[in-house]
């Protein structure tokens, strides 16, 4: 029995505890990201934003959550029930499982796997399923159009994300996320790979269906796109999933280009602050840019979106893969 306890039960308990330690703050951040979004947008548009529920409106996300929880779940009669319910669950789950490999500090990671970056890439590329399933299962034209747009959009931008990841990998020589961050000890990759950083960030906007690439849920054309038939908790799951994905994408940007948990420069006042705080601060900064973009840019037209993905980003990122590889080989900086 003792062996069963130490060999199987205890590790399981520890892992569950770790998962909870990651998921709870994450959900909390998701809730307050929605609040932040409304406040930031309000600020940029010279409005006040939520300010009634609680001090400064701080309890607004809670109120929204409770409201959605108590609404009736409406399933359209023509819908494919299993898929209809599965879709938001998939979206929400994918927003969470990516965090399994994110290093918050050196060694502070749930699963330190060899191919962490590929895992993250896989998870982000699966995000499209939630949208397609929702669009198809709703049995509604608007939802279906939104789903089709999203499928084409996400598949297109994944390719350039893949190439950007390859450029970073060339400079690191490992697929492990901790290694990727360690490689940026002296210089964040955002500096030498600046164009790739921009491409990655913009593709990230497209991958998370954020403005200016939020065509799948374009309210002006498609009412609300793929989630038009959703209400109550399933809708809340979509909403949470979308914001969790945003945070995940920001975390990915931070790890790949902004040095993860590392301080900007490794000198006195900066390296007193612990890694996780730096990490959170950087994520918050990237998220702010997400919101800033939303407040600033109008939505892209669909053909322009495709043109940007295939005719601008793809050749550019491909060229940078070659350039990076060439420079590394020519200068002998290839990582061992």
């Amino acid at each position, binding site marked *: 029995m003792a062996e069963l306890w130490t060999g199987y039960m205890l590790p399981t308990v520890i892992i569950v505890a770790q998962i909870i330690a990651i998921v709870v703050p994450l959900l909390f951040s998701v809730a307050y990201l929605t609040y932040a979004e409304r406040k930031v947008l309000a600020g940029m548009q010279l409005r006040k934003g939520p300010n009634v529920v609680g001090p400064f409106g701080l309890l607004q996300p809670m109120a929204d959550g409770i409201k959605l929880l108590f609404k009736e779940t409406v399933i359209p009669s023509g819908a*494919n029930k299993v898929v209809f319910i599965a879709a938001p669950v998939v979206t929400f789950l994918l927003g969470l499982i990516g965090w399994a490999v994110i290093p918050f500090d050196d060694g502070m990671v749930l699963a330190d796997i*060899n191919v962490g970056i*590929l895992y993250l890439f896989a998870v982000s590329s699966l995000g499209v*399923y939630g949208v397609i399933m929702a669009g198809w299962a709703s049995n509604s034209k608007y939802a279906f159009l939104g789903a089709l747009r999203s499928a084409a959009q996400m598949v297109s931008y994944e390719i350039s994300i893949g190439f950007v990841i390859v450029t970073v990998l060339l400079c690191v020589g490992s697929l492990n996320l901790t290694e990727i961050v360690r490689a940026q000890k002296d210089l964040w990759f955002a500096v030498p790979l600046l164009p790739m950083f921009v491409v990655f960030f913009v593709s990230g906007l497209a991958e998370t269906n954020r403005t200016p690439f939020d065509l799948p849920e374009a309210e002006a054309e498609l009412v609300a796109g793929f989630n038009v038939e959703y209400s109550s908790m399933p809708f809340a799951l979509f909403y949470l999933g979308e914001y969790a994905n945003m945070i995940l994408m920001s975390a990915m940007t931070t790890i790949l280009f902004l040095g993860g948990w590392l301080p900007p420069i490794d000198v006195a006042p900066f390296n007193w602050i612990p890694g996780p705080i730096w990490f959170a601060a950087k994520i918050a900064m990237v998220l702010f840019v997400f919101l800033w973009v939303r407040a600033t840019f109008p939505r892209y037209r669909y053909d322009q979106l495709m043109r940007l993905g295939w005719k601008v980003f793809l050749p550019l990122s491909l060229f940078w893969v070659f350039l990076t590889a060439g420079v590394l080989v020519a200068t002998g900086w290839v990582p061992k």
Partner: protein
Amino acid sequence: MIVQALAFYMFATVAIAAGVMVISARNPVHSVFFLIAAFFNAAGLFVLLGAEFLAMILVIVYVGAVAVLFLFVVMMLDINFVELRQGFLQYLPIGGLIGVILLVELLFIFASWTVAPDAGAVAAAPMSALGEISNTRMFGRLLYTKYIYYFQAAGLVLLVAMIGAIVLTLRTRKGVRRQKVPDQLRRTRAESVEIKKVETGKGI
């Protein structure tokens, strides 16, 4: 070891069950979902084998891209299942017979299975260095040295596939106004804006 064995049987069972469901599901969209489930479980089996790179690539390429396009196409097609079923029943005896014959043949073959003397040595050869370096690195080393010919040849095959797809489908339609970005960027204020002084009550 028990956990590994359990995981193996779980992945293997679900993969096979999903595979069966792919061909027996009534709705083709459900078939694609089961196909995705099968891919996932295959990836799980790869992880158990210690081939985590292959597992992730399987998920990224097949689930993240190929199956999305499958789903895309299947959702757009309007397939009449009643008709399909009729054909199915009609050909069931013949198909079943062929299947049974193939199965018997396979059993016959495997009953007399003798592994060639060289097989063990060949299978073990490329794995020798696996313990020391990650399998991603090992893949790279093999793929770009020993198997470079296969790698390049497969690349050529894909290139031809791409050319073929473009040749057979790309049409430049006439009478469509296309966006010309350089032209748009070249426009200047001088040639597109004109300020006119309009007298009150006259109009232009």
